[in-house]
């Protein structure tokens, strides 16, 4: 026994290379493979039903232009949900960030300072969400239900319910940097989505922070007994979501060079749907960013596809609901099989 009680962390150990086992691989990655299959099946279905639309690049450029608006937020939201929490306030953070943007611009006449102010606003509101949840011990569903109303109300009060033009941003480098086009067609916001997704992936899968997110969502008591600062980790997760939400708010507003005080309101449900569609468990401890990414593209494609196939827009929500319920049943089934 004595040999085992000494720290072996510094010693080099022969690297461990597990033998590849297809059955095991499928079991372990069932959720991702499942949602990816749904994605491919839907895609093939769309191509068969509307080849004129789905065999041309235009529809994909349109997807890559509009899906990032909510897919951006779906990344850090996945992290928050894996930690066993939820956030309903991010659509209001999008709008509140833009209030700061426009106010700062009106004072300083600088688009860059305005951009920074928006991001800072997101950080502060996200941090406050975390503080309310962690320090006051309020369940995040209720806490962010409250802050969601509060910040939407703040947007209306501070902006007097007015909308406003953002045409002036076109003269700044910020506009092409956030929502420009590469080679006249490829939307830059898609690169931002890939960047944020990559960054979140590293945080979640390669950094201690992400390991602690999974542990907290799985068993918060164990995490505490093992000395993990569960409060700080959760506050940081909310703060990160706040930052990205404000960023998404600027991107979505610059795309149309206009600010509406209702900015973000349509994104609450589809962002949550993307996360759950991707196989993240509402109970915490389980979930992947890959799943969320695919989930976001399924959600984003359904609306356009419904119309392209020749159904009226009335069908969209019905199909949304159908696919979400079906996928969540699939995930639950796969999770049971895994155990």
């Amino acid at each position, binding site marked *: *026994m*004595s040999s*085992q*009680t*000494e*720290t*072996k*962390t510094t010693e080099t*150990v*022969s*690297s*461990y290379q*597990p033998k590849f086992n297809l059955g*095991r691989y499928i079991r*372990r990655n069932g959720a991702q493979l499942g949602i990816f299959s749904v994605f491919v099946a839907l895609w093939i279905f769309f191509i068969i039903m509307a080849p004129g639309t789905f065999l041309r690049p235009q529809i994909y450029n349109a997807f890559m232009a509009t899906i990032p608006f909510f897919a951006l937020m779906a990344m850090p939201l996945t992290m928050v949900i894996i930690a066993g929490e939820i956030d309903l306030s991010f659509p209001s953070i999008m709008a509140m960030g833009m209030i700061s943007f426009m106010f700062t611009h009106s004072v300083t006449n600088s688009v860059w300072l305005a951009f920074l102010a928006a991001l800072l606003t997101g950080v502060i509101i996200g941090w406050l969400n975390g503080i309310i949840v962690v320090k006051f011990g309020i369940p995040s569903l209720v806490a962010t239900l409250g802050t969601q109303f509060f910040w939407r109300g703040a947007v209306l009060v501070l902006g007097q319910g007015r909308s406003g033009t953002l045409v002036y941003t076109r003269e700044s480098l910020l506009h092409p940097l956030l929502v420009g086009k590469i080679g006249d067609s490829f939307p830059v916001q898609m690169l931002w989505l890939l960047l944020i997704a990559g960054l979140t992936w*590293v945080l979640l899968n*390669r*950094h*201690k922070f992400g*390991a*602690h997110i*999974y*542990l907290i969502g*799985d*068993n918060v*008591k*164990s*995490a*505490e*007994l*093992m*000395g*993990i600062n569960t409060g700080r980790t959760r506050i940081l997760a909310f703060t990160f979501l706040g930052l990205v939400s404000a960023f998404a708010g600027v991107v979505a507003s610059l795309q149309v060079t206009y600010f509406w005080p209702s900015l973000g309101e349509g994104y609450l449900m589809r962002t949550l749907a993307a996360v759950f569609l991707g196989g993240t468990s509402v109970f915490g*401890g*389980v979930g992947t960013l890959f799943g969320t990414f695919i989930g976001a593209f399924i959600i984003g494609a359904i609306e356009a596809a419904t119309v392209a196939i020749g159904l009226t827009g009335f069908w969209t929500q019905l199909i949304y609901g159908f696919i979400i319920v079906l996928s969540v049943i699939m995930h639950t089934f796969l999770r049971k099989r*895994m*155990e």
Partner: protein
Amino acid sequence: MNYRLELKNVSKSFGEVHALRNVDFQLGQNEVVGLLGDNGAGKSTMIKIITGYYQPTSGEILFNGQKVDDLTVPKARELGVETVYQERALAELQTLWRNIFLGRELVNRWGLMDINRMRAETHRLMTQSMGFTSGAVTPDSRVGTFSGGEKQGVAITRALFFDAEIIVLDEPTMGLSLKETEKLLHFVSDIKTAGKSAIFIDHNIFHVYSVSDRVVVIDRGKIAGEFFTKDITLNDLMDKMIHVAETGILEQE
């Protein structure tokens, strides 16, 4: 002589409830101390103070004769306290390697987790210390799929892997089969051979008696008394425990 660990006049209250009152406790070098007491006597509270999970309301904690203020879980770990908790403190949906390194993941020079090294270490520990022989379990297996004994093996291995000086075992035999229990008791005796100290808590008085050098009896938040196991027979110890439970008084010769 310095004790490896000493509690001086430690009290802990939760609001109106006094979980511990003026507790004095010593753990020597190379000693296994058994803690006995009824449910709610204060055993778990005392353990959680030693591991830094709770901060005492008053009193002092000394490691090797040095007073330590504001003991936290990471600080206690630095001082060499490792704990096998009653709840085992495992994250059941996570993989084996994540559980072994829970809360102190190995990182590379970029500050990112060194997953390959953690997997390799886990793989080595699986065969050397956890006793997994079947090929079905890998470092990437989910801990939730393990049996009670296997889970306990994970919790113990985790405590041993990091250079522990004091190993705290809080009800480690709970939910174990007879064979697994026997293995565990062997392991506690091995701790002493390795020059470490241990605090052993169990409901089962036979287990405590068989592995401890000294038994400390705790009752209603107070230390009721202590015996060296070499000075008392198991039957006498049992009689005294029953008497304490009934009257709150421990007769000490």
